[in-house]
């Protein structure tokens, strides 16, 4: 698919007004603002340079209407230009591939936890004897190992995964956690995701790592999760739309229980899935939940406590929290009730 990128420079005081014009016509109301700043500045001392103009961009899908939209933006900017200095509108065509793969050139070998090494599939790496190497091409799926939510999970898997455990990776994305589980000895590993693009990527990564005999990748979720829809659908996980969403999403019959579950999701979804996670976790099993933003952590506590999950540990990196829970043994549950 081809897109038009429209850019214009404007001084600091005009930025909001130009944004307003671009948002009115641009795709999805989206606007990019790149303020001027001095390169080489370090984190906390960073300063914008308000004296120099900022660059603003918006995007239009290249179709029958794009030329008319472009003209309307140009007209609106011309009028603004009568009041404040605004640069000429620049247009260039852009292919989806131009950005979908652009980030790859910045991605390098990454060490996480004690022994895990993530190697982009297009790079070579000589592993140390103890290394657990994950070969990965995340493509358009979540899970590169760079994000704190994934890093926390990997470090916790290293601590809790044991050979022969039955494991579930819920919301597998690129498959990174499922592959790590398999390489740490878990068998069998079920990797589920609501997003068919993700399961395709995950299956490819599983093959790349030669763990297809252990890891079974499928599109779907657990119980309530199967009615949640696609995670980018806009109303993902809304309580009131759950019943109305497309029931066509396959829900693999997960009848077994697991000794270890990794769920790198988000707080709201963890709450919705709490009961399903609890029933799918074997007594004495370990649940690693991640993707919890610290401000919403109390919601997860409440939901997990209500279904009898017991917290063992809590880890935080920046504003992201990962939790380790277990399910009480059957007899303990009876005693406590």
């Amino acid at each position, binding site marked *: 698919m081809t897109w038009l990128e429209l850019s214009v420079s404007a001084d600091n005081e005009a930025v909001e007004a130009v944004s307003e014009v671009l948002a*009115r016509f641009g795709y*999805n109301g989206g606007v990019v603002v790149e303020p001027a700043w001095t*390169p080489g500045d370090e984190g906390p001392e960073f300063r914008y340079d308000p004296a120099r103009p900022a660059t603003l961009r918006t995007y239009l899908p290249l179709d029958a209407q794009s030329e008319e939209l472009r003209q309307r933006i140009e007209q609106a900017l011309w009028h603004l230009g009568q009041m404040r200095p605004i640069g000429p509108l620049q247009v260039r065509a*852009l292919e989806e591939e131009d950005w979908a793969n652009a*980030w790859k050139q910045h991605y390098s070998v990454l060490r996480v936890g004690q022994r895990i090494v993530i190697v982009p599939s297009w790079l070579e790496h000589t592993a140390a004897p103890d290394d657990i190497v994950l070969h990965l091409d995340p493509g358009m799926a979540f899970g590169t190992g*760079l994000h704190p939510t994934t890093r926390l999970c990997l470090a916790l898997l290293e601590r809790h995964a044991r050979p022969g455990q039955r494991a579930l990776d819920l919301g597998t994305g690129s498959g990174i956690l499922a592959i790590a589980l398999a390489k740490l000895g878990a068998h069998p590993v079920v990797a589920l995701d609501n997003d068919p693009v993700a399961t395709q990527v995950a299956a490819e990564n599983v093959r790349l790592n030669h763990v297809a005999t252990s890891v079974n990748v499928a599109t779907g979720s657990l119980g309530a999760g199967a009615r949640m829809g696609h995670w980018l659908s806009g109303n993902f996980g809304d309580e009131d739309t759950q019943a109305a969403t497309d029931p066509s999403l396959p829900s693999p019959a997960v009848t077994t229980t697991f000794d270890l579950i990794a769920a790198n999701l988000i707080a709201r979804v963890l709450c919705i899935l709490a009961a399903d996670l609890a029933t799918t976790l074997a007594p004495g099993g370990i649940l690693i939940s991640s993707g919890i933003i610290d401000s919403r952590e109390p919601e997860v506590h409440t939901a997990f406590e209500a279904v009898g999950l017991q917290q063992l540990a809590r880890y935080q990196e*920046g504003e992201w929290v990962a939790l380790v829970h277990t399910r009480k043994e059957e007899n303990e549950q009876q005693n406590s009730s």
Partner: protein
Amino acid sequence: MAKKLVAIVKLQLPAGKATPAPPVGPALGQHGINIMGFVKEYNEKSSSQAGSIVPVEISIFSDRSFSVKLLTPPAADLLRKASGAAKGSGTPNRTSAGQITREQLRQIAQQKMPDMNALDIEGAEKVISGTARSMGIKIVD
């Protein structure tokens, strides 16, 4: 040790509804950020403000990690709401889209203050009144 900051990008997006499509993909892909990582983080942080435009500032570091900070709503949106105008004037130098009072201007400046480069509230008001003017919104006493 502070990680080196290599770029800062601001995006205006509908809360909770970011996708890898433009503007997110092209704006972040060129800086080496995993697009899905940003999409997940933005949607999670902004989901409670669904229905609004929530601008976000992304700081990109040399190891390609990034931090995401939600900003206050665009001044243009606040001005539109305060004035009751459906949109800015297409010809602000000629036709007016609406008006707001000095008091409303001060309220907007106060709300926007944390994200502005202005030194004081008067400076912030000056910037916002400039935005109002360029949208064809008049400020009245």
